[in-house]
């Protein structure tokens, strides 16, 4: 019955983990569910020899902890890949361990299938196959992410190779477990299965570009869930079946969602050859840039008490004035203080911002000229820069040789957080780079100003 609690924790955990506001507690629930599952299992196995268990848990726990504390923020995806590989490997090892303990070491009569039962035998094969392929695939993914393995090497007739590997692996496994009565032969065949499975993972991931790795890892993650479920079948452990299956299914959906977000199809990703290297960047002028989507921005805005909106030519070009006003209204309705800071030369004609904001009937009281508002940025939680560039470019102050040197600018950097809405990292009228975009507390919201703002407004209301 306790197992049901564990399942409930898994279900609620995953659900919360998929919503921004609850993600962290969701992760906690998942961890609690796992702890509960372990405890239940220990209770069930009863009074046994804890030597291996304790040392296994201790060693594994410390290693996991160590890997994480040593990781740099930029390495997260690689680490996820690695952990994922470990999970797959664990499933395969569990299956192998079962095989050895029940078949090889017992050395009873008959085939393994007869010893273990057909279902267990079949799922044992699945477990080894999926687990081992997950391991090797994950290792490949990590190497690609690190850039150790680069490019998208084409494997000739890859589909055929894959098929051959799968078929031969499955055949070896089946013969080993269903036909062979000799444990030695059987274990040899199982090792064959293992090798084939490892190769499957390599062939699967090798030709896929580094930029597509997140999708691949997500897919492999779904696989390792399934491997766990297969182990569950082999061990007749329902908790394992359920948890493994849920995460397998959820992982598949997540993979699909990630593909859609990248505007790719899963097949497309798996065929490979796309994606280049993970560290590719179009905008070589710029260092690391942080970008986000409207939902994340909305979350930050909700927590803000004061917001200043800085419109520029891009607002007018996108004719996003109504959308900007909608965002302001939504924030005001939430009790946020909202002001617009108008730079004297924003836009392309004197008073351009006034003209377009008047079209959207932004009340004059909300508009503040530069000299009036510049010292307030330091006490402002969030600045939203909408299609402005030159007028918020610190180069005017910091780089005496800049073409805009000496022009007074809106000092948006002073604010706690800066969102910049524009379509790309392209420069503005003056044609120069803007270091504001690289600041640690600047987050780019890429896209047409009207679209981004519409999105933001609907998130906020």
């Amino acid at each position, binding site marked *: 019955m306790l197992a049901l609690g564990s399942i409930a924790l898994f279900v609620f955990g*995953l659900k919360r*983990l*998929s919503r*921004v506001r609850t*993600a962290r507690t969701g992760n*906690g629930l*998942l*961890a609690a569910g796992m702890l509960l*599952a*372990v405890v239940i*299992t*220990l209770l*069930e*196995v009863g009074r*046994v020899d804890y030597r*291996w*268990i304790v*040392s*296994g848990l201790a060693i*594994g*726990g410390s*290693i*996991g*902890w160590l890997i*994480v504390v040593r990781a740099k*923020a930029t390495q997260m995806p690689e*680490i*996820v890949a690695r*952990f994922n590989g*470990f*999970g797959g490997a*664990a499933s*395969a090892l*569990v299956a192998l*361990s*079962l095989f050895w*303990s029940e078949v*090889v*070491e017992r050395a009873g009569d008959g085939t393994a299938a007869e010893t273990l039962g057909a*279902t267990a035998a079949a799922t044992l094969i699945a477990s080894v196959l999926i687990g081992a392929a997950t391991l090797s695939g994950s290792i490949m993914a990590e190497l690609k992410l690190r850039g150790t393995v680069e490019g998208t090497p084409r494997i000739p007739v890859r589909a055929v190779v894959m098929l051959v590997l799968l078929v031969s692996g499955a055949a070896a496994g089946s013969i080993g477990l269903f036909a062979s009565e000799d444990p030695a032969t059987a274990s040899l065949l199982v090792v064959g299965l293992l090798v084939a499975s490892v190769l499957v993972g390599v062939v699967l991931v090798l030709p896929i570009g580094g930029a597509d790795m997140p999708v691949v890892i*997500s897919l492999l*993650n779904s696989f390792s869930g399934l491997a*766990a479920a297969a182990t569950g079948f082999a061990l007749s*452990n*329902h*908790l394992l*079946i359920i*948890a*493994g*299956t849920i*995460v397998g*299914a*959820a992982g598949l*959906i*997540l993979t699909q*969602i990630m593909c859609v977000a990248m505007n790719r199809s899963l097949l497309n990703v798996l065929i490979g050859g796309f994606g280049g290297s993970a560290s590719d960047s179009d905008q070589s002028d710029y260092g690391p840039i942080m970008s*986000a*989507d409207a939902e994340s921005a909305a*979350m930050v805005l909700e*927590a803000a008490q004061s917001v200043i909106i800085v419109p520029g030519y891009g607002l007018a070009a996108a004719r996003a004035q109504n959308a900007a006003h909608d965002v302001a209204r939504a924030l005001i309705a939430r009790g946020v203080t909202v002001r617009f800071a108008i730079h004297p030369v924003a836009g392309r004609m004197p008073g351009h911002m006034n003209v377009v904001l008047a079209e959207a009937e932004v009340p004059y009281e909300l508009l503040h000229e530069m000299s009036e508002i510049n010292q307030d940025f330091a006490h402002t939680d969030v600045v939203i820069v909408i299609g402005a560039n030159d007028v918020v470019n610190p180069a005017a102050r910091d780089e005496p040789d800049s073409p805009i040197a000496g022009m007074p600018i809106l000092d948006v950097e002073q604010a706690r957080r800066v969102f910049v809405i524009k379509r790309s990292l392209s420069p503005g009228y003056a044609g120069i780079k803007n270091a504001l975009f690289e600041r640690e507390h600047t987050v780019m919201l890429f896209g047409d100003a009207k679209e981004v703002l519409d999105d933001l407004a609907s998130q906020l209301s």
Partner: protein
Amino acid sequence: MGPALVSVYVFVLAAFLGFELINKVPPMLHTPLMSGANAMSGVTVIGALTLVIVAAPSTSVLLGTGALILATINVVGGFLVTDKMLSNFGGRK
């Protein structure tokens, strides 16, 4: 109805549940969710637990202990790394 069949029922229901559970994930959560799910897939740890309950170091026990270690790394590391990713968000908890 045999127990295997019931297990299949359980499997199918769990799969449906897994599919329904996740609807629309904001892009910023793709990686953390993947990472959390990944940690959860280390649930195989409980399989490993059931296999290493004897004292004698046989091949199977060694394999099982290997599985246990790897699965624990996956679980512990996975949840920690997810939490680390999420700690940057700073939203209301």
